[in-house]
């Protein structure tokens, strides 16, 4: 597991969907780097000088909201969700 993956995993813990997107953790650093809104959050998190802080302690409320929306979006755009939604009623 790379250092970035570990950082991404900790960052995603802000969302109740964190466990559902576990297989996608490796993609998150690149996606956040590419996106204008997410890049500052990712950069700040990488440069976190006090690693003991959780994201909720480290970021402002508005940024936490963005992160939660991002993780929720990832789950409902994921293969896992699409596969389950295609099945059954």
């Amino acid at each position: 597991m790379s250092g970035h993956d570990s950082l991404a995993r900790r960052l995603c813990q802000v969302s109740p969907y964190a466990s559902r997107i576990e297989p996608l953790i490796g993609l998150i650093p690149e996606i956040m780097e590419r996106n204008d809104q997410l890049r500052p959050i990712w950069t700040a998190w990488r440069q976190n000088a006090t690693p003991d802080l959780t994201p909720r302690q480290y970021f402002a409320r508005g940024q936490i909201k963005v992160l939660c929306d991002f993780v929720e979006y990832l789950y409902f755009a994921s293969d896992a969700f699409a596969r389950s939604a295609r099945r059954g009623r």
Partner: protein
Amino acid sequence: MTLRPKFCVIGTGAGGGILAYRLAKAGADVLVINSGGIPAQSEFQNELSPEQKGHFEIGPHTTFPVRPEICIVHPLLADARRRSSIECPREGGFHHYQIHHVNGLQNLWNGICLRYSEDDFANRNPYSEDCRWPISLGDLADHYSEVERLALVVGERNGLRQFPDGSFLAPRSARQIDRVFIDSNAGSLGPDLFFLENRKAVDLRPDSTQKCVACGNCGRGCRSGSVYKFSTHLLPEIRALRNFRLLEHTRAIKLTAVDCDNAEGFSISHVVAIDERAGRIVEIEADVVIVCAGAIESPRLLLNSFADDRSKAEQVGEFLQDSPRAVVGTSLFRLWFRPANEDRGYGDHILLGGQIKDSQGKRFPFVGQFWSDFTKVPYYLAEMPRLPRFLLETISRQVFKSTATLVLFSPAVPQRKNKVVLADGVDHFGQRQVRIDYETSEIEADHGRRLAALARRMLRKASGYIADDVGSPPGSGVHYAGTCRMAADPKGGVVNKDLKYFKSKNLYVCDGSVMPVLSEKHPTLTIMALAHRLAERLIKTYT
């Protein structure tokens, strides 16, 4: 390196592809140049999951929560900062989608093929006095038929004046969600509104190696190669011909003009191109040059070429148009808790058309497509109230399989002030970019509001639980036209009715830019028919 073909075709989109094919098949000596190469089929694996694609449709400018919006994200689209023909668009400005590869924008074409009607060619659009068709439907009818056969267009004959019939193969049948939509609305439509089977360039032939695999989303690049494009449908037939040559990764950067002594105007002596990979200059001395680079790139090439003598490029770039439209999305409640239907066909099986009134009581025509596919991008989340996780998941499952979107188009209102002009910035290859000045007219905005209201009404009748107006910023219609418009005389446009540049004896333009005014219908088939007509004329004149 200097090449000396009879014909030099610049671009392989809707116009250039047909033109190159027809000229090559007739035995003419044709050189085709195109920026970029033939995209690998792997670029179009739209059945690959978002995970496999890796970016989940999250682009650099996506904001969270993600709102429904028209934002086409695809790796083939030119990066505005590096390769685009236009300067970085300002916030809210005209967004130009551009693909620097063989097939051009047809790489992501949805495949809808509608003939323009007699009324369209008869210049009945009351807002287009400066932009008038100099040809009639009769001039194009046979060419429409030819390109419909080449592109394998499916559809049904309906006998409608607004949508002239063509040479169709049998379409796929309507899906469950299409029937829900039609049945809910059929009784409520007045005599001026009607449904018809979609007409699309989709290969449904059972024995074809590239037949449609019913993945439902032609507009994101066809995964099986069944939606028409030059590289999959025509190029294989002509590639081995000795009189045909395609130079990929070769971008035209300048046309060199030589003034003639007679009244025929100037002559193009050279096409100067750049080999994008090697960085070296390629010079082409052709008897005839046909620019088919699209309604933004073609004027850009002409404006760059004649920057020192603007009289050679009078009116070039003016009257830029994009189809005004309304896009409204929803989920049909009537399909909730029913088994998911895996048959997604070709996404939009049903067209609707007719006329409605604007806010002044004037009638205007429209056409719409009813689109449905599994929801790969969960735009709906932004509209959801805060819900417990299990409830959000349950609702999302239902939305996923019952998504419906209506896309309705109205005719453009051509304005001289909407234009492409040379900018100061340069692209990756040092060629001057263009700036797009564009303002949506009040009439178009009014039509858009009317169409959005109609779409919401129809979707609600079909049990749409919520109807989101997705919005349609300038440029997102991706029907670019008007910038080298054809006309009966030089005062009225840039090219004549045979698409010959008025001021030149051997320069032609053949792409969306020559269409003087956009009707409500999708323009691609008309561009292809114009290209076929031009090819026939060039064959007669020069070979």
